[in-house]
């Protein structure tokens, strides 16, 4: 028979079998639908955000082109920009806002000083409504300012009142309702405050070496493209140190974050698909078991093994097709659901819609998972012998299916893995996640086998209830292994997330504050270092005061190759993407750990500038002692010869400089100092107030407050991950429900026999409670074991933070697993409890 005739026959037979409905496929349908919906939903949501960013790139950036650096543009550069379109300019810096009546009431702010052209694109919405230029206008006494709500609360002030920023007085004329390019600012430590350029001049904050970022926006007035602008800029200013962004990728940081978050949540959704797949496979197996007689009959009539495989594959894939349609439908409406319920709270722009790409991908994953989980039972069904119609007891079919089919199933899973890695923005993480999932699957399976083996080896129990409960768990065909694996994987993912959260929280709340300084003092002028040290030192708990000169510089050349063209590892690329802190020192800092090269240059060294560089970055950039790198500081290129390499522990939270230069050249550039101090919590407020009062120009950053902000952000991330892992648990529950449903008839039969022999309903209920309670506890314990290993590995190897064992997370995993399984098991056993023996015996 030709292949097409075989296929036609398979479709015909499949259609006949499916006429009787999908009753046997409910769990298969639900598991696959859930997994596909999760992947499609996450992908669609991610795409909605990426499309939103793409479409609103111009508004988000505030123009077609954005340029930024740490010193202002020169005249010729301004003229160059103006050739392309209208230009707006603003300066951003961190500063302090003070209540003029009480100098100790201060708040860290993110200050933006804008020119009259700002904003070029988008609307600035103020309350009360007024033009921005009107709100920021200066008179002889004061300039105007517009502020975010948080500052009004922080300083307990209101619109119409005056605040001090630096030496300048500013009248709060309005509240910022929306700022078109707010998202570009990214993570901020304080509320936004906007003033005019004149206001900034009057504030006295423009001191030498202040950390001010100068930004320019260009709205094209002629027919050109961002790429054309970049090319022209590079040609006109080969030494340009501007960081250039454009409307096509306005906020690379946010785009990257969304890509990474989508990737991570997609992997969690993929885990849900895999967990559900275990249930789907179980369901296919149960279905084919029920079809044994039909399969044997067809074979007796001359159907070949290949035809049997095809007939049932067509049926299963037809149901899988339905699951895909349902899953894709649910997944595609998820963005609209998110828009409806959470749209107002999401700061990033989104274009909620139906996107073909993520849906196609979810369909591909769903199809591969369906194939991967369906092929093994189908391969076993293919081997059902027609002789089985006559006997099964003497020679039960124990075939695992032919190798070629098992390889095909493995191929489907490998394809899922390869597809995930290929499409991932972070392949290494994806490989790690997939390896972790596979490792957990194997570990859970081994644990399940071990438990079954252990329970079998237990001496015979005197308690009949316990004996019957245990035998239900270990009898041939008991779904103990698949339940422990499927439910365990969902629970272990949740346990991993919760345990990592506990470790990260422990690091942020306990470990970091004990290692980190309590305050950073930025924009400290050279003549202020001594008085600041003295003032801070007057507090009993203050210690480890440290002040270092600080400049900002960008690595522009590695040896003689431009940084953009240099061969740099992905892990080290960050160091050349933007400005880095740079300092100089005639002596080795006391915590410097030199690992290669001489210890330090002589204190009186005079000569070409040397640099002490970070060991890991040097490796990532292919540099060694004696090589050169070039940095651009305030528009000037400085070539540095690597003198030694240091091992830097970034976790100390101190001011860690990847570049420490020899003095001689760099110290002539205008610069300020940054100082840190550690103090007891009791002196926190007093130090803050005293420094604020004595040094109005110094920006004081409280580490405790900053860490609280970081903690809030982490909590939001963890919440998202928790929701995603709940989907995985839901898939595990489906597997459990499937296993309970599959064993329903056998359980009913057992219950009837036991009732005939005199067992009461309460006795049966105790057996079920013990059985499912034990099963859930075992699944929970196995999940906890897997979760502990995974969380510890991530904490130790990836995050490099101490692992914190959170008792409640551990308890939740085990108790949650036990209670959930118990409730579902008892619900499933209810029919068996209420079965009337006489009726069942008459109609078996």
């Amino acid at each position: 028979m030709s292949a097409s005739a075989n296929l036609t026959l398979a479709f015909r037979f499949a259609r006949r079998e499916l006429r009787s409905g999908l009753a046997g496929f409910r769990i298969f349908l639900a598991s696959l639908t859930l997994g596909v919906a999760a992947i499609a939903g996450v992908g669609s949501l991610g795409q909605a955000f990426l499309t939103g960013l793409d479409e609103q790139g111009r508004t988000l950036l505030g123009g077609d082109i954005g340029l930024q650096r740490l010193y202002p543009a020169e005249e010729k550069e301004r003229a160059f920009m103006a050739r392309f379109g209208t230009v707006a300019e603003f300066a951003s810096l961190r500063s302090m806002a003070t209540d003029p009546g009480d100098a100790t009431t201060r708040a860290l702010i993110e200050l933006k000083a804008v020119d009259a052209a700002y904003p070029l694109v988008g609307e600035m919405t103020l309350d009360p409504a007024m033009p921005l230029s009107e709100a920021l206008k200066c008179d002889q006494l004061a300039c105007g300012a517009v502020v975010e709500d948080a500052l009004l609360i922080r300083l307990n002030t209101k619109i119409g009142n005056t605040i001090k920023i630096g030496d300048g007085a500013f009248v709060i004329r309005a509240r910022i309702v929306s700022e078109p390019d707010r998202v570009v600012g990214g993570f901020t430590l304080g509320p936004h405050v906007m003033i005019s350029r004149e206001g900034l001049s009057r504030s006295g904050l423009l001191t030498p070496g202040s950390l001010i970022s100068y930004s320019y926006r260009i709205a094209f007035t002629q027919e050109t493209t961002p790429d054309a602008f970049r090319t022209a800029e590079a040609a006109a200013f080969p030494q340009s140190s501007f960081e250039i962004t454009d409307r096509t990728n306005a906020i690379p940081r946010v785009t990257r974050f969304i890509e990474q978050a989508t990737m991570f949540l997609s992997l969690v959704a993929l885990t849900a698909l895999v967990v559900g797949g275990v249930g789907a496979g179980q369901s296919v197996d149960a279905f084919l078991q029920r079809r044994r007689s039909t399969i044997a009959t067809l074979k007796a009539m001359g159907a070949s093994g290949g035809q049997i495989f095809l007939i049932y594959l067509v049926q299963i894939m037809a149901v899988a097709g339905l699951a895909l349609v349902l899953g894709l439908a649910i997944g595609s409406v998820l963005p609209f659901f998110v828009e409806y319920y959470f749209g107002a709270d999401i700061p990033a722009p989104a274009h909620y819609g139906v996107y073909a790409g993520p849906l196609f991908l979810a369909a591909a994953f769903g199809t591969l998972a369906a194939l991967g989980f369906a092929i093994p039972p189908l391969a076993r069904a293919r081997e059902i012998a027609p002789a089985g119609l006559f006997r099964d007891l003497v020679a039960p079919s124990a075939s695992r299916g032919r190798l070629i089919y098992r390889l095909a199933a493995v191929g489907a899973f490998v394809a899922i893995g390869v597809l995930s890695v290929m499409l991932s923005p972070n392949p290494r993480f994806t490989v790690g996640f997939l390896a972790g999932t596979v490792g957990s699957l194997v570990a859970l399976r081994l644990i399940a086998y071990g438990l079954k083996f252990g329970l079998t080896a237990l001496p015979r129990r005197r308690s009949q209830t316990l004996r019957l409960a245990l035998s239900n768990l270990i009898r041939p065909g008991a779904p103990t292994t698949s339940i422990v694996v499927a439910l365990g994987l969902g629970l272990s993912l949740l346990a991993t997330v919760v345990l990592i959260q506990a470790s990260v929280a422990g690091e942020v709340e306990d470990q970091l504050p004990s290692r980190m300084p309590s305050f950073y003092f930025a924009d400290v002028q050279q003549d202020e270092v001594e008085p600041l040290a003295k003032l801070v030192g007057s507090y009993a708990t203050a210690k480890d005061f440290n002040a270092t000169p600080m400049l900002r510089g960008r690595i522009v050349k590695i040896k003689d190759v431009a940084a953009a063209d240099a061969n740099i590892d992905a892990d080290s690329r960050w160091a050349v993407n933007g400005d880095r802190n740079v300092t100089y020192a005639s002596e080795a800092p006391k915590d410097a750990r030199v690992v290669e090269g001489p210890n330090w240059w002589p204190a009186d060294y005079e000569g070409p500038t040397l640099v002490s560089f970070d060991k890991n970055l040097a490796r990532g950039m292919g540099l060694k002692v004696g090589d050169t790198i070039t940095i651009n500081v305030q528009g000037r290129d400085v070539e540095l010869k690597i003198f030694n390499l240091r091992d830097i522990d970034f976790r100390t939270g101190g001011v860690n400089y990847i570049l420490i230069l020899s003095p001689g050249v760099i110290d002539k550039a205008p610069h300020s100092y940054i100082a840190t101090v550690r103090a007891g919590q009791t002196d926190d407020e007093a130090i803050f107030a005293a420094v604020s009062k004595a040094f109005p120009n110094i920006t004081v950053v409280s580490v405790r407050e900053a860490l609280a902000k970081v903690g809030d952000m982490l909590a939001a991330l963890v919440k998202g991950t928790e929701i995603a892992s709940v989907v995985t648990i839901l898939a595990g529950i489906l597997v459990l429900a499937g296993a309970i449903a599959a064993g329903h008839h056998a359980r009913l039969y057992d219950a009837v026999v036991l009732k005939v022999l005199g067992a009461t309903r309460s006795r049966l209920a105790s057996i079920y409670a013990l059985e499912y309670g034990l099963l859930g506890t075992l699944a929970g314990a196995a999940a906890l074991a897997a979760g502990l290993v995974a969380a510890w590995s991530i904490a130790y190897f990836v995050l490099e933070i101490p692992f914190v064992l959170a008792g409640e997370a551990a308890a939740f995993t085990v108790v949650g697993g036990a209670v959930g399984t118990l409730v579902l098991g008892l619900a499933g056993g209810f029919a068996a409890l209420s079965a009337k023996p006489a009726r069942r015996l008459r109609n078996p």
Partner: protein
Amino acid sequence: MDTSLRTRASSIVIEDVRLTLASTAGPVNILNGVSLEVRKGEAVALLGPSGSGKSSLMMVAAGLEKASAGRVSVAGRDLTGLDEDELARFRRAHVGIVFQSFHLVPAMTALENVAVPLELLNRGDAFTKAEAALQAVGLAHRLDHYPGQLSGGEQQRVALARAIVHEPEVLFADEPTGNLDGATGAAIVDLMFALRARVGATLFLVTHEDVLAERCDRILRMKDGLIVAEDGPK
């Protein structure tokens, strides 16, 4: 014996066939060196107590089970070296089987059940022939009924129609009346003999009923995996 001559005249040739199956308690010897020849068009009954090996011998002869040793030739085809799929192709072309438990496909109507062998042969007239076969067994009015909607006797008639619809050379029947009451069973047996006569098929009948066996040309008695006696028709 001249094998080629014997093969031309014979429908089934079984030479020193042994069957050993694995079980959890160790290997079990089912057939212990059975030899047998059935001529074309002949009706042979296998009689014997439960566990004597008669169903296993039928399975080996029908190509449902591979012998552990010995040689089996059916309808001129040596089954000894055939793999699973070749055996399936052999069965669909040359063999019809009637089971004690009917073994109809529950999801298919009577007509579809009967059409299956012809569909497996890729015959375009599968449904016309199937309808005619059902008519021949008196079930023209039950074409669209599912097995669950038919009585035991009706189900066995459908199974009979399915077994002969493709006019096989050999018809195997395993206790065809075992699940039926006396009157229904007798009617089925009449029908079976009539149909096999119409298509000229060899009949290989497994039964433990002497009355039924006596309607065959020969009666072979089995015990402990061996043919221990052979009777002619009375």
